[in-house]
């Protein structure tokens, strides 16, 4: 990574970086395949953020794993996921790409950060090694180059005294610092697409604010297209220009953030927005019902996400 340049990314303005059409994801179930995602379509532009919002079981994490080619064994994905790459400027189909090609793209052209930074970092290796790993693999840098790069990147994401801390282990950092390390790790090859899956859910609110600011700065600097996955509507309203609302694997509403928040068209979206507690407004939402929640039939399972 040299001096910061404003790059529009492989996608030029107006032309989407990632195009998803009719994505379906299924896992093997007891009585045949269980569909977790039903027919999603959306696009992500370079330099912009798409927020994918949903509750547990909405399929938002599965969607991101399908894009990255990280679905668990046995899961199947169909439809079309096209990523604009140098090799295929018109869009390369990821769902049918070979394992080797996907491995080459992951960490280099598309990167992902996850929810719990402690469990997502290898406790047995120093932070500097892990941060530079992708660069060594995809760009063939030497150990010395990689270490210098790691120091540089750690400094960029706000780790104090990076020269010393590059040799520390993940355990020696706080939660917010670890997430910064994850971010550094994901951006080291300057990917075009960054998928952030609930990156601040496990963090304190003050730390969350810092991380969101960091992501925004870095996005501006590198022109990365970002998918921000969360259940937190307040966070997504600050982070995303476009929003896709999911429910049980199906798209509910999709559009610019301002429209979704000020003029939601679907009942579900309205219910979600009503249910969000407002810190500046103690009036409880009017629609809240008590009442009986019907029992789910035994044996059915919820698809993914937090309970």
């Amino acid at each position, binding site marked *: 990574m040299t001096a910061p340049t404003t790059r529009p990314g492989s996608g030029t303005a107006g032309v989407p970086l990632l195009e998803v059409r009719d994505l379906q994801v299924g896992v093997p179930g007891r009585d045949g395949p269980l569909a977790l995602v039903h027919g999603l379509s959306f696009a992500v532009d370079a330099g912009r953020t798409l927020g994918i919002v949903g509750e547990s079981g909405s399929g938002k994490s599965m969607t991101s794993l399908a894009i990255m080619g990280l679905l668990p064994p046995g899961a199947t994905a169909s439809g079309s996921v096209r990523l604009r790459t140098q090799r295929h400027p018109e869009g390369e189909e990821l769902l049918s790409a070979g394992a080797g090609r996907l491995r080459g793209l992951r960490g*280099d052209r598309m990167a992902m950060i996850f929810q719990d930074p402690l*469990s997502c970092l*290898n406790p047995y290796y120093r932070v500097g090694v892990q941060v530079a790993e992708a660069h060594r693999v995809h760009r063939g840098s030497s150990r010395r180059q990689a270490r210098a790069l790691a120091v540089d990147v750690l400094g960029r994401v706000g780790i104090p005294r990076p020269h010393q801390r590059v040799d520390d*282990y993940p355990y020696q950092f706080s939660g917010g610092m670890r997430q910064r390390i994850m971010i550094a790790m994901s951006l080291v090859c300057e990917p075009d697409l960054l998928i952030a899956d609930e990156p601040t859910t496990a963090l304190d609110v003050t730390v969350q604010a810092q991380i969101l600011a960091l992501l925004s700065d870095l996005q501006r600097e590198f022109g990365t297209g970002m998918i921000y996955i969360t259940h937190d509507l307040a966070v997504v309203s600050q982070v995303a220009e476009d929003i896709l609302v999911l429910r049980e694997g199906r798209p509910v509403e999709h559009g610019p953030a301002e429209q979704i928040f000020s003029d939601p068209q679907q009942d579900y979206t309205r219910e979600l927005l009503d249910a969000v507690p407002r810190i500046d407004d103690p009036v409880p939402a009017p629609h809240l019902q008590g009442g009986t929640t019907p029992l789910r039939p035994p044996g059915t399972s919820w698809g993914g996400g937090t309970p």
Partner: protein
Amino acid sequence: MIPYLLRRSGASVLVLFGITLLTFVVFFALSPDPAVTICGKTCTPDRIETIRGVLGLDQPFLTQYGHFLQGLFVGRRYGVGENAVQCAAPCLGFSFQTNQPVLQMIAARLPQTVTVAVGAAVLWLLVGVSGGLLGAIKRGTVWDKGAMLTALGGISLPNYFLALLLQYVLVVRLQVLPFPDSSIGLTQDPVGWFESYLMPWIVLAFGYASLYLRLTRDTVLDTLSENYVRTGRAKGLPRGLLLRRYALRPSMAPVVTLFGMDFAGLLAGALIAETVFGINGVGKLAADSIATNDQPVIMAVTLLAALLVVVGNMVVDVVYTLLDPRVRISQ
């Protein structure tokens, strides 16, 4: 780190003292009169008395124990006057059967036992760990099931049976190997040496490899479900690197820990394998001395085994702190 080592060493020394006392008490209380044993068939009460005097068996318990400890640290003298025999430290006594210094007897046999232990260890680590790793990454496939089945066989098959079976098949029927002869040195006759030790290695390794295969497989499977493996995949790391850094390395701690203990125990003498194959090692010595009730030898071998286990334990603890950075930091 240093304070930790000092604390552990102190604790280990206490444990060893306790073991010497316990061993001594057991032999003191339970064994038949050694003087009678030494005396043999043509015995007179006078002779028995003499022997008892020489060995100090007429003294009170604590005095005997004291002499014993003294012998271990500085050396002791058996008997009085011109017939007295000096025994240098660490003095483990003299064999009742052969009258040889026990220390010498053990020292002479240690190389064979070490050869058996080290060879078997290399073999079982290679087979067990790679088999377990293969089983874990190819979980559910024929490789995994085959590995687990073999492991089950290894654990269930008594090693003396396997030893006899191997000897029968390879030496007697197929005649591809000679009867093991542990007196062949590596330098004199490498091929013969290898042929002699091959079967004991296989017998020992088979049982342990099975355990290590299962342990490795289970640990690696656990590791593969960790979130950081997903991060590694998300970075597009090649399979080899992923396996090495994200699957194998994190799984090593339990394997290494167990290995330390097992190896220490093996060094104390693989009794059955040595006996079946006629390897003249410490294990066979122990077996023989139990059969002839040769107390000093039994005691010495017991102490050696305890020492090895205690030291092995300590080494394993230290190695563990080196293996897991999280433990290291909290020291």
